[in-house]
């Protein structure tokens, strides 16, 4: 059971995190993101393409390419990964903060056995011999639910099924018991039946190891089933954040609600999915004022403010952590549909 969060330090703290990709036309992919991720909790970062969710993840672990300019701070284990020298960041990666990628087949080294990759990751942070590292690899494979790990440890990635590969990648990520695990669309490439198993594995690890899990996804169904906290991103910014109940039960941003209406629900009566007009904005083509205003059904009611004034995240009544950035709902609830 998670501790009340106010009593513990966040495992990962982002403050005013901003990512700009350089070049002749600099693009602000992430713009002033503040987030706290607490041990034993799952934070879902929700967004579509261009929302900046993946850039936020990579900036948090300090793995953006040199062409990206990162400002603000991303603090893990007392070290700010944005300003720290690479020599300070390297030992933290894998041991304090680790990452799981979307496409496990691409993210596992095709030339090395699964066991070698896990034990290599372990030996980067532990002074042990190969036998001990291999023993640890088998142990972790067993923990992530690979059957017959003693035998499978010598397999190559292409000999694993899609779901097993994702488990194997999770194994390389958790082999050093990190305090923060970032999972970037970890189940998007998987079949739905396998997706559920992998999500159960990730939340199980969060609970058992007391990790803080950052789950990056576009699927609100996945969020509802796994997350404790949510941050919805649009065009590089967080537009709504709060606990999963805050955001699903008291949705305060029109974009969040539009996403919910565009997500099919097999438990509800069949209906036509509501289409959001227009195209998702990104840092590259960010509209003025509120970035969502060209697609927002309430922008007309509010008037000029939506087109000119950038809304800030403001606290919502009834919950300490629920905040949204919307002119329309700043002083009212979203009307029922």
């Amino acid at each position, binding site marked *: 059971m998670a501790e009340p969060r106010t009593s513990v330090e966040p495992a990962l703290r982002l403050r005013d995190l901003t990512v700009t990709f350089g070049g002749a036309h600099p693009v602000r992919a992430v713009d002033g993101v503040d987030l706290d991720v607490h041990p034993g909790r799952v934070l879902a970062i929700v967004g579509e393409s261009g929302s900046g969710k993946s850039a936020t993840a990579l900036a948090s*672990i300090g793995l953006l390419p040199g062409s990206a300019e990162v400002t603000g701070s991303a603090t893990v284990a007392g070290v700010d990964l944005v300003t720290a020298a690479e020599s300070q960041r390297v030992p933290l*990666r*894998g041991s304090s903060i680790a990452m799981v990628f979307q496409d496990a087949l691409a993210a*596992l080294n095709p*030339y090395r056995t699964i066991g070698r990759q896990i034990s*290599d*990751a372990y030996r980067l942070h532990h002074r042990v011999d190969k036998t001990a590292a291999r023993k640890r690899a088998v142990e972790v494979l067993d923990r992530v639910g690979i059957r017959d790990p003693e035998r499978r440890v010598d397999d190559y990635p*292409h000999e694993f099924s899609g779901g097993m590969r994702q488990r194997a990648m999770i194994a390389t*990520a958790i082999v050093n018991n990190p305090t923060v695990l970032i999972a970037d669309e970890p189940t998007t490439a998987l079949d739905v039946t396998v997706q559920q198993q992998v999500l159960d594995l990730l939340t199980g690890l969060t609970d058992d190891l007391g990790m803080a899990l950052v789950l990056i996804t576009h699927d609100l169904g996945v969020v509802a089933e796994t997350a404790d906290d949510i941050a919805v991103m649009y065009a590089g910014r967080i537009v709504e954040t709060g606990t999963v109940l805050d955001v699903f039960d008291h949705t305060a941003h029109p974009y969040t609600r539009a996403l919910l209406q565009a997500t099919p629900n097999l438990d509800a009566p069949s209906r036509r999915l509501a289409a959001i007009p227009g195209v998702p904005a990104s840092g590259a083509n960010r509209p003025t004022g509120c970035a969502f205003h060209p697609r927002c059904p309430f922008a007309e009611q509010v008037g000029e403010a939506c087109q000119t004034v950038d809304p800030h995240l403001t606290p919502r009544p009834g919950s300490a952590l629920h905040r949204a950035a919307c002119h329309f709902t700043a002083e009212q609830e979203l009307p029922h549909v």
Partner: protein
Amino acid sequence: MAWYLARRLAASVVVLLAISFCVYLLFYSGPSDPARVLCGKPCQPERLSQIKQFMGTDKSAVVQWVDFVKGLFVGRTYGTGAEAARCAAPCFGFSFDQRQSVTSLIWSRLPITASIAIGGAVVSLIVGMTLGPLAARFRGGVLDGLVRGGSLLLVAMPAYLLGLLAILVFGFQLNMVPVSGYVPLSESPVDWAWHLILPWCVLGLINGAAYARYARNQMLDELGSDYLLAERATGASARRVRRTARRSVWVPVTTLFGIDLALMLGGTIFTEKVFSMHGIGDLLLGGVSSHDLGIVVGTALFGAALIIVGNLIVDIVQGFIDPRVRRG
């Protein structure tokens, strides 16, 4: 593995037979008649038919080819009685000019060509696998520019031109190395290497330039791949990640290397000519100019066989580098 090898070898034999047939047809249906060449200028008709009979060219083209293929496997004897010339298996043909089997001619020239080819191949590998990854690492820098520009220039430059330039500069002007001739390894290893340095460098630079280009591009592709990003996420340093990436660079380079080495072993015509070394390339060239068709067909086929075998070895080596190739 054994099953695959058997299949590939069988296929190779079929391909070689087909190639031999084409080569045979091509040269023997050509305008020059080897019997007439051997007969000399005042050529009596009965002597000509005698020679034809001796060579076996009095028979139809297909029978000639069958005789040739038979010779490959069991050897053959040209003519009869005291004049008869025996050509032991594998008989790649017979040079009536030099009264020797092509096999023994190739065999006698092979050490020279092999010395040039293997040394050149080693130099090219060192050049390509050093400069390519370095250029990738310092992408856009001075070294990268030099490698890209230089490789383009070298790939475009014919071996003989580079060879002549090298002789001019290092041989005549600077007087550092001998400009021609071959000293057998068994005679003096130092002289052997000393005489071969220029050809090695010429071939090594030309092929190595191509490898450097491939290695650079492959390395860049690889450095942008997810699995190396994932390796960094486990806490590997940038240096360690580059080391991991280098392995994948071997995949395209071994393919080129295998074919290049096979090609060179089949005769490095220009290099041998420029540096006056009498290897297989020189043998082929001599055969062409003296209309000695036995030599032309034999060396061409020998070269083709090397390429097929080289290809097979490349495929097997790739299986060891890349485990994905191993699975069905």
